């Protein structure tokens, strides 16, 4: 009981913040106050005002609308990355953990070596193979994030494998597939859920860094990292450009990291 009250302030504030951000992003998918691409030569570099909540950029475009659109695509990319890597990672991890053997040994070694390298460095190499673009960012980060999920799931499955409820299920003639995904998988959720939120944050941050470096999402598409890279040129004349785009990244990441911290504390970790 004591642990629950302690974790809840993080869980609640994280849920509220990420909930608000998700709602804003959903809103941005259907409606933005201005068109994100509408240029207005008479309204260049306007500081934040009631008409333009976050000001306007070098083309007189409304930054709030552009942040909504950029956050939208960053969110979508991160979601795809996490879905891709989580599904594959859980699949690999569960099979390795449950069956063990030589394949487990080899795959674990490979995963360990991949996680030893910073994601950005590997993403740079992968993107120089595939070329930049939103799809390739998803592919690069998706592959790079598999090991973290595989490692976690492997450990959990190896731990559950020899427990009595699994043994009895096996004796009762339950099929391997059902044991893996109906009996063991739900038990890994308390560990998996914080990992998903952390993975989501890493995806947001990595995508932003890659787009910032020009090896991620390309200029005709929208991304918060791309906006930050643009805004750097106008740091002197229009600092609100950077604040708007950067603030969105920070709030998005903060919401989910509070959420994962809350979840972990709830688990008593």
């Amino acid at each position, binding site marked *: 009981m004591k642990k629950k009250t302690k974790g809840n302030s993080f869980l609640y504030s994280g849920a509220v913040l990420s909930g608000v951000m998700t709602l804003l992003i959903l809103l941005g998918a259907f409606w933005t106050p201005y068109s994100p691409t509408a240029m207005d030569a008479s309204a260049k570099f306007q500081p934040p005002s009631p008409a333009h909540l976050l000001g306007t950029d070098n083309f007189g475009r409304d930054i709030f609308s552009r942040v909504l659109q950029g956050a939208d695509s960053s969110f979508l990319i991160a979601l795809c990355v996490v879905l891709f890597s989580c599904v594959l990672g859980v699949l690999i991890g569960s099979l390795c953990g449950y069956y063990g053997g030589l394949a487990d040994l080899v795959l674990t070694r490979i995963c360990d070596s991949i996680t030893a390298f910073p994601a*950005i460095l590997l993403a740079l190499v992968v993107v120089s193979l595939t070329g930049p673009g939103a799809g390739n960012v998803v592919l690069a980060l998706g592959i790079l994030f598999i090991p973290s999920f595989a490692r976690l799931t492997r450990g959990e499955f190896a731990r559950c494998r020899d427990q009595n409820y699994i043994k009895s299920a096996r004796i009762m003639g339950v099929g391997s597939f059902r044991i893996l995904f109906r009996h063991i998988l739900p038990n890994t959720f308390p560990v998996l859920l914080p990992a998903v939120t952390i993975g989501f944050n890493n995806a947001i941050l990595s995508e932003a860094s890659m787009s910032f*470096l020009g090896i991620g999402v390309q200029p005709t598409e929208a991304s918060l990292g791309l906006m930050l890279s643009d805004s*750097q040129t106008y740091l002197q004349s229009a600092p609100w450009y950077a604040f708007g785009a*950067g603030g969105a990244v*920070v709030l998005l*990441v903060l919401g989910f990291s509070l959420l994962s911290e809350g979840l972990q504390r709830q688990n008593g970790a």
Partner: protein
Amino acid sequence: MKQILRKIAALIITLFLVSLLAFLAFQVIPGDPTTKLLGTEATPEARAALRSQLGLDRPVLARYFAWLAGVLRGDFGESYSYHMPVWDMLSDKLPLTGLLTGLSFLFTLLLSIPLGVLAGSIRSRALDNLFAALDQVVMSVPPFFIGMLACWLFGLVLRLFSPGAFVSYEDSWTGCLAYLVFPALSIALPRTAMTVKLLRGAIRQEMEQDYIRTARSRGGSRARQLLWHALPNALIPVITFMAVSLAEIMTASIIIEQVFTVPGIGRLLLASISNRDFPVAQAIVVLLAAWIVLVNFAADLLYQLADPRIRLR
């Protein structure tokens, strides 16, 4: 001793594999470097001649061993774009990135240990939550955004330095170091927040152990319990994390160099990737990868030195 020898053997094998993978990655890249060098209208004969001159017509493994033999002698090949030895392009940029990484690591170390001990010793629940929340906020800011904020606040508003006007260490050592303080801090802050979180957790855990209760019952002050008894044990997991940090800091400096226009290897790497200048990109990736492997190896050794219980096993 036997264990250390085995670890060194594993290290050499890992370095070999890492260099092979990095080499192969840049060989399967679509896009013929001869197109870049000769333009799209070159005749097939001219291309073939250049390919054999660059050695691109030989089998991949033969090229790898030729390249590796060169690397071991300090010869990283020749840049496609600038027609000069890759090593000459790297040699004046490596110390700069090294300096930035070192400075940043130093800041992380100097900030996170006192702050971690402080966070671990807070006894008020509200204060502890406040500190943890603050920590979480700092962790959520990407280093390049901190860099931009620093450029804006300290560079453009307070005019403590001029962003973009990098001072080469050849001109002035102190000027160069002073310029690197802000980029280094931009990388160090989120890293510090992560280390503080880890150290805080480790100290909390140690403070509940029996040996601390014994120390308390013997009348040791709380500062002595914390610093003399709990801290050394709490630092053991931090050592491994610090090794990861050292690798992450090095790659974060690739990004930060763009923000502060520091002419280090990060900028060179990005330029060479977009120019398809693979010998340069390959050399940098291999060097960074070797660095990461070596740092992890050093952490592994340090970890054993720090904790005799692991050595005994």
